């Protein structure tokens, strides 16, 4: 029991003193997951909205695929991305394996279906009539979509939060693609795994506390924006 308490105490200490080694890991975690979320949003929100409003053959299949994608196991993504980025893989020329950029790519693949699926569901929740009305009033599809998205912004924001939450806490893909290299590709989740193996429970707890706190702050900020707009 004592070692857990010690760990928490040490964790708070490491966090409070902004330990430089820990800060490198924190920065990289934020960098990778925030960048991946940003890219995923740019792809996923328009994609999800378009699938929701357009009628096309194979739409049900597309939706089923996206819903499956929402539960993509990070290790599978990690494996596939690693194979593609390896020197003699199809994307080997990019030299992205064991780099933060490679990790971003993997996380974009994990986050995109989640944000796509949730924004699709959000757009679908809007009455079809509402959309048709806007079109009837002379709006182009793009303008109409914009208005609809404005209408459901809270749900879209929730989709973004969900996407970010899933990748900041993910360990399988970044471990494989990044290689958990100290000072280069070590992020909070992979560091927690390593330190636990090494028996450095105190540091593992410290990193976990930071991960939770970071996740909380980001979500708090997003929720704050969301709720302010809700009023």
């Amino acid at each position, binding site marked *: 029991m004592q070692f857990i308490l010690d760990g928490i105490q040490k964790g708070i200490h490491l966090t409070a003193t902004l330990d430089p080694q820990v800060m*490198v890991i924190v*920065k*990289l975690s*934020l*960098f*990778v997951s*925030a*960048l991946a*979320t*940003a890219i995923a*949003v*740019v792809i996923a*929100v328009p994609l999800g909205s378009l699938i929701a409003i357009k009628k096309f053959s194979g739409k049900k299949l597309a939706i089923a695929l996206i819903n499956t994608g929402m539960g993509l196991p990070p290790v599978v993504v990690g494996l596939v991305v690693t194979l593609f980025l*390896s*020197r*003699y893989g199809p994307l*080997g020329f990019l*030299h992205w*394996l*064991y*780099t*933060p*950029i490679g990790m971003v790519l993997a996380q974009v693949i994990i986050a995109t279906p989640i944000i796509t699926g949730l924004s699709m569901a959000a757009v679908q929740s809007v009455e079809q009539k509402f959309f048709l009305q806007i079109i009837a009033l002379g709006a182009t599809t793009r303008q109409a979509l*914009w208005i609809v*998205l*404005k209408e459901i*912004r809270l749900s*879209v*924001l929730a989709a*973004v939060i969900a996407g970010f939450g899933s990748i900041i806490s993910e360990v399988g893909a970044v471990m494989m693609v990044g*290689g*958990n*290299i*100290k*000072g*280069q590709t070590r992020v909070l989740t992979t560091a927690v795994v390593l330190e636990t*193996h*090494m*028996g450095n*429970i105190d540091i593992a707890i410290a990193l976990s506390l930071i991960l939770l706190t970071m996740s909380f702050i980001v979500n708090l900020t997003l929720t704050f*924006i969301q709720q302010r*707009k809700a009023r």
Partner: protein
Amino acid sequence: MVKRVFLFAAAIFVAALGCATPRAIAQEAKTVVLATTTSVQDTGLLDVLLEKFQAKTGYIVKPIAVGSGQALQMGRQGEADILWVHSPDDEKKFVDEGYGIERTTFAHNDFVLLGPAEDPAKVKGTTKAVDAFKKIAASGALFISRGDQSGTHKKELKIWKAAGVEPDKAHYIEAGQGMAATLNMANEKQGYCLVDRSTYLSLKKNLKLVILSEGDGILLNKYSLILANPQKFSKINVAGGRALFDFILSQDAKAIIIDFGRKKFGQQLFFYDYQPKQ
């Protein structure tokens, strides 16, 4: 609002870029991929060595710490520039197949057999490792194996074979993980476990397991460096691999390696064997 979401995303994007360390965006020619074993990394030796090497040469090393089996597999696929492994039979095969060149055995330490202090298989004091393994098999005591084709796993299989016994399958756990993780599992389950002495000493403070058998010749653990064969793979960083190879075989590295662990563990973890050619 949607615009703001995008603006927010863009803001994060920019902030994130600001966080990126310059090292993260490194030129490929400057990076060297070192496929190595978990024992070298888990002890912390690699960090010390690479820090010195990187400061000296400007290369950025990407050490990928996996089992020796997986490290050699990386070499077979041309994914590594240099290998630091400890699985002699597999290394010879690797070189014979033409994937590696200039295999140099340069350091050693030894494996020890750990087990619970109660020692249910009564192996304490057994000098021959094969006899200890026979006793474990006969008593049906729990044994935790790496189970990952690593150098340590290969050594363990070799001892089982030399002992001429099969471990009791019902009491044999294949962890499929690195040395530290496997050792922690053995500790929690109070099973027997073969481990290299350096990892054992690094983790000793958290372990209830004790050394029950050591010192047998078969327990010698030899580390080798192998360069990837550039004639086999065109994308190998030849100069970078060579620079790291030469550094580890230099007097600078020797001083670091033989000194490593003395202060923290009170004893030398790795013994340096390489003699430079005159």
